[in-house]
C-alpha cells in the first residue's frame, strides 16, 4: 500500500520584498497511514511551510506531493478546497473557532462546504463533541469555554468530515501543560483506535514525545527522522509523565 503522504523533493521559494526566501529546499518524506508524526524545528526552519503544503493551503514551487495517491501539487484553488474539506482536519494553536457561533455550529462548519448534503448534521456534531468529552456543551459559545475545551471543540470540528489526516500546528502552544497533555491523549486515542494519521508541528520535546515518529527540521531541510519506540503515555493530573524512550 502506498504511503498516505508521499512528498518528493518538495521546494518552496517566496519573495519577501526583494529577498528570495528558500523555505523548503527539497524535502522528501513518506508518511504511512496511521502514523503520529511530530515535526520539530526552530522558527523559520520551514516546518510550518511544510505543514501548509501538506494541508493543501499552498502549492509548492517544485516537487511532487501525492496525498492518498492523488497528485495535488497541480490542483487549482477550488480543487484544493475540496481536498481540504474531505481529507484533512486542521487544528491551530489559537483554536480558530468562530466567536459568534456556539460549539455545535463551529463543529458543523465543515459540513457546510461539503458538496453533498449531510443528513442529520446535528447528530453528527453532537457525537463529535461527545467524543472529545464535551457532551452538554453544544450551546456554549467559545468565550464560555476554557482554552482546553476550545481546542477540543476544534478537534471535534476537524473530525466531522472523517478525514484521513489531522494537521496540527502547535496544538498545545496556547495551553497549560495539563490541558496540553489532555489534547495529546485525545490525539493518541484517535491515532490508535481510529487509525487517523496525525502530523503535528511543535517545538516542545515533551509534546513531541507523544508521537511515534519525530522529524527534525533546519533551514528548510530534514535533519533527523527518528522512530519513538515508547511514546509518552497519558497519565492523570498530578503524576509526572514518564520520560519517553527514544531510539536513534
Amino acid at each position: 500500500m502506498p504511503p498516505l503522504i508521499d512528498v518528493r523533493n518538495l521546494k518552496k521559494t517566496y519573495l519577501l520584498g526583494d529577498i528570495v526566501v528558500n523555505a523548503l529546499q527539497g524535502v522528501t518524506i513518506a508518511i504511512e497511514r496511521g502514523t503520529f508524526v511530530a515535526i520539530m524545528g526552530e522558527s523559520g526552519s520551514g516546518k510550518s511551510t511544510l505543514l501548509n503544503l501538506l494541508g493543501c493551503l499552498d502549492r509548492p514551487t517544485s516537487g511532487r506531493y501525492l496525498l492518498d495517491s492523488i497528485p495535488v501539487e497541480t490542483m487549482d484553488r477550488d480543487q484544493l478546497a475540496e481536498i481540504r474539506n474531505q481529507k484533512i482536519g486542521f487544528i491551530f494553536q489559537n483554536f480558530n473557532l468562530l466567536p459568534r457561533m456556539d460549539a455545535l455550529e463551529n463543529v458543523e462548519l465543515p459540513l457546510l462546504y461539503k458538496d453533498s448534503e449531510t443528513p442529520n448534521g446535528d447528530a453528527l456534531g453532537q457525537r463529535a463533541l461527545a467524543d472529545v468529552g464535551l457532551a452538554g456543551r453544544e450551546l456554549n459559545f467559545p468565550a464560555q469555554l476554557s482554552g482546553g475545551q476550545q481546542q477540543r471543540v476544534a478537534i471535534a470540528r476537524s473530525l466531522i468530515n472523517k478525514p484521513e489526516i489531522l494537521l496540527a500546528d502547535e496544538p498545545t502552544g496556547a495551553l497549560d501543560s495539563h490541558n496540553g497533555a489532555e489534547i495529546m491523549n485525545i490525539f493518541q486515542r484517535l491515532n490508535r483506535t481510529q487509525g487517523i494519521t496525525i502530523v503535528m508541528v511543535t517545538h516542545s520535546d515533551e509534546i513531541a514525545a507523544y508521537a511515534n515518529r519525530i522529524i527534525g527540521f533546519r533551514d528548510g531541510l530534514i535533519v533527523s527522522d527518528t522512530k519513538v519506540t515508547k511514546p509518552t503515555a497519558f497519565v492523570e493530573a498530578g503524576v509526572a509523565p514518564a520520560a519517553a524512550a527514544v531510539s536513534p
Partner: protein
Amino acid sequence: MKHLISSMRIAFRALKMNKLRSALTMLGIVIGVASVIATVAIGSGATQRIQQQIASIGSNIIIVTPGSMSSSGVRLGTGNAVTLSEADARELEAQCPDVELAAPLVRGGAQVVYANNNWATSIYGITPEYLTIRDLSVADGAEFTQQDVDGATKVAVLGQTPVDNLFDGADPIGQAIRIKNVPFTVVGVLARKGQSSQGQDQDDVILLPISTAKRKVIGVKQANADAVDSIMMQAKSGAQIPAAQDEAGALLRQRHHLQAGEADDFSIRNLEELFAAQEASSSIMAIMLAAVASVSLVVGGIGIMNIMLISVRERTREIGLRQALGAKTRDILTQFLVEAVTLSIAGGFIGIVFGIGASLLISQLAGWATSVGPGAVLLAVFFSALVGIGFGYYPARKAAFLDPIEALRSE
C-alpha cells in the same frame, strides 16, 4: 439552494453583530429608494392628472371656432364672427372621412329659477352628438333626442351644480324650471365631471336642444339664423386628428367661398397637442427628479461597498478559516454578496415604506396628486438589489480570492 440558505443565515448573523453599522449603511439605500419612490409618485401623479383631464374633455376632440370679425377696421377677437353654421356641422360630419361626429354648439348664460331658488349658469344649446363627443353621460333620467332638437321642445339636461343649487336634494326629473321665464322640463341629470384643467367647474351647465336654446334663451343672431358659436368634432382616432383637421379646413374654406390667399374665417384647434405637450413636460420633469433621486441610491451603494470592504478586512481570519475547512471561492463570494444584497434589499423595502409615506405626506401637505404604482415599487426593489450586487461584488471577490495562509495569519 442549501448554500444560499446557509449563506443567508451567516449574512444575517454578521449583520446582527453590527446592528448600528448595518442600520447606518442601510440608511443610504433607504433614503435613495424613498426619494426615487416619492419623486416617481409625484411625476406619475401629475401625468395621471393630465390624462384624467384629457379624458374628462373627451377623446380625439377638434374644436372649430369662427374667425375674428372686423368692424370698421376694429378687429374683434376670435369667435365673434357668425361664419359657422349648423349646416357646416352637418356637412363636416357627412363629407370628412376622418371625422366621426360634428356637433354644433351655442353658448349663453341665464338665471334659472326653480321654486324659491335661483342660480346663474351656462346654457349650452346642443345636439345629442355633443354628449357623445364630450363623453358625457346622464346619471339620472334621459338625454334629449334629435326629435327634441327638430321640434324645439322645452326640455333640459342639468349638470350637478345647478341641481345641487336649485333642488335642495329633491328629485329634479320631471320638474319644471324657468330659464329666462320660459318653463323647461328637466329630463336628465349629467354624471359628475369635476374640474377642468383650467379649474372650471364642468358641472355648472344646463344643456338644451340647440333649436330651443336659440329661439327661447340665447337668441338668434341677426346676421345668420343658422350661426353657431363653435363646432366640436371628434376624429375617428387619435392618429386621424391631423387628417380630420385638414379635411375640415378645406371643406370650410370651400363652403365659405374663400379665395386662395384669403385668410380663414374660422380656426381649428385640437386639445391633444396641448395635452401632449403638458404630458411630455410633466414626464420630463418626473424623469429628471428620479434621476436626481437615484444619485442618492448610488451614494448608498458606495456606503455598502465601504462597509463590506471594512467587513472583509475585519473578518479576514474567519475567511481564512472557512477556506481551510473547505470553503470554495464561490462559497465565500456568495456569503459576502448575500450580505451586501441583504443590506440593500432590506434598505430597499424600508425605503419603499418611507417613500410611500413621503408621497402621501406630499399629497396631503402640498395638495399634489401622487401615485405609487407597482412598477415603481418593483423598480425600486430591482435597483436596490442591483446596487447590492454591483457594489458588493468587488469586496466579495476580494474576500473570495484571499490567500488562505495569509488570511489565517492575520489578526
